[in-house]
């Protein structure tokens, strides 16, 4: 009868179909869904590894989780960490380990982030950890994505395509209405949703990972034809109604298991992923902070160059902020 042990996927019709329809179909976005501790981030590393091996440039937008960067150190590729102005990522320890070369780049404005992207290395956009405020982060990322689209559309892009952008905690970038705190955040989410829809044609793939379908901004989530389902994915709503009858199965998935749902909402079998190792004795520290400067009239203003007055007024402000206007 059916074997209990996982059968190798490699060499099967299913794997060949997956490669043709997803991996080698450049620009096709994927949204991974699953509750906390369902292994989304672990699986995102594996998917990213496949895509990178297929020839795509990898840009990972990290969400600042502790130790999130560590598995990347074990992939044998050079790592380039790109952070906001005056913010630094420090990887400490591991002196006796054979770790790959790590390049640290600090941008002067969000638009500049893409200039540092390089083919063949793991490009990490390390932004989220430096923002205390979701609105400021949303605005920053909206500028990053806007500049991407502008540069690619005008043919001035330094970004080597095909490429994919790997975004963990995607609702931080494009939150749903229920998670949006103010109109600035909504504008940013709306901008990002518009950009996402155009990226595919530019052979730029977005792989987003989040806890629930309904946590993601509606216009953005509908741009994802492929789904990766981990445990308790929160797939409710008319867009995913065909999957609701599988909810009991989804809730029983183990941490290493996931389902790949094709654009026609069909899926075959449970896919078992391996955990990526972490280098022992290595830790990551984020130094610096970006912020929304609050004027004394108690209204929010966009991130801008810090004045001496603001530096004195807010003890949290340890970086000079992000130059330029976001409006």
């Amino acid at each position, binding site marked *: 009868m059916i074997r209990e042990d996982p059968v190798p996927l490699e060499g099967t019709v299913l794997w060949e*179909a997956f490669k043709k329809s997803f991996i*080698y179909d450049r620009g096709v976005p994927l949204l991974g869904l699953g509750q906390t501790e369902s292994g989304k981030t672990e699986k995102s590393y594996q998917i990213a*590894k496949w895509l990178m091996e297929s020839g795509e440039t990898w840009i990972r937008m990290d969400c600042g989780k502790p130790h999130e960067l560590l598995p990347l150190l074990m992939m044998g590729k050079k790592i380039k960490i790109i952070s906001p102005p005056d913010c630094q990522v420090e990887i400490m320890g591991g002196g006796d380990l054979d770790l790959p070369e790590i390049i640290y780049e600090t941008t002067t404005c969000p638009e500049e982030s893409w200039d540092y992207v390089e083919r063949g290395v793991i490009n990490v956009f390390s932004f989220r950890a430096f923002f205390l405020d979701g609105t400021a982060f949303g605005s920053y990322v909206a500028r990053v994505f806007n500049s991407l689209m502008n540069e690619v559309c005008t043919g001035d892009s330094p970004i080597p395509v095909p490429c994919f952008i790997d975004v963990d905690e995607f609702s931080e970038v494009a939150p749903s209405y229920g998670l949006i705190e103010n109109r600035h955040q909504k504008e940013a989410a709306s901008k990002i949703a518009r950009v996402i829809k155009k990226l595919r044609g530019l052979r730029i793939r977005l792989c987003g990972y989040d806890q629930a379908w309904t946590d993601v901004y509606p216009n953005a989530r509908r741009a994802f034809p492929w789904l990766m389902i981990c445990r308790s994915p929160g797939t409710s709503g008319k867009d995913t109604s065909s999957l609701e009858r599988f909810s009991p199965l989804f809730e029983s998935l183990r941490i290493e298991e996931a389902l790949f749902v094709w654009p026609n909402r069909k899926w075959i079998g449970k896919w078992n992923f391996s955990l990526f190792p972490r280098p022992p004795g290595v830790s990551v520290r984020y130094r610096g902070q970006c912020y929304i400067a609050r004027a004394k009239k108690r209204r929010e203003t966009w991130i801008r160059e810090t004045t001496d007055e603001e530096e004195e007024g807010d003890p949290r402000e340890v970086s000079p902020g992000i130059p330029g206007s976001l409006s």
Partner: protein
Amino acid sequence: MSPGRDSFAAGLRGPDYLNMAGWVFLETHPSLTLYERTVQLGNITVRLMDHLDTDKDRKTALFTEIQGTARKLDELMDQVENFESIEGAFTYARGYMKDLFNVQYRLWSITQDAGLLKNTMMQNFAVPGSLEPSP
């Protein structure tokens, strides 16, 4: 209409193995030839029959039949352009389509008999750690 046709269509409607196989066959590979799609369908079937410890001779015979039908279909597609009218092409095709429906009906019967609904959906696959070089 072939007697197998209704059964096959009925099989496609359920959330069962044939739904899966039919999906691979009909939707996943629009770029592939009918021959390639049919062979893939056959591969899935044989794989499932492996799980069921199906008789080897029966499995081989079925797979050969699928391949044969697939080749006929592929030849047919090559020749369609040579026909002067679409009616002529359909007449020519009818015999082969009957063969195909018969094969599909047999696949459907086997999988239905085996009650593969849950087992197939729940099959565990171990994902490869690396992507093999692109063709």
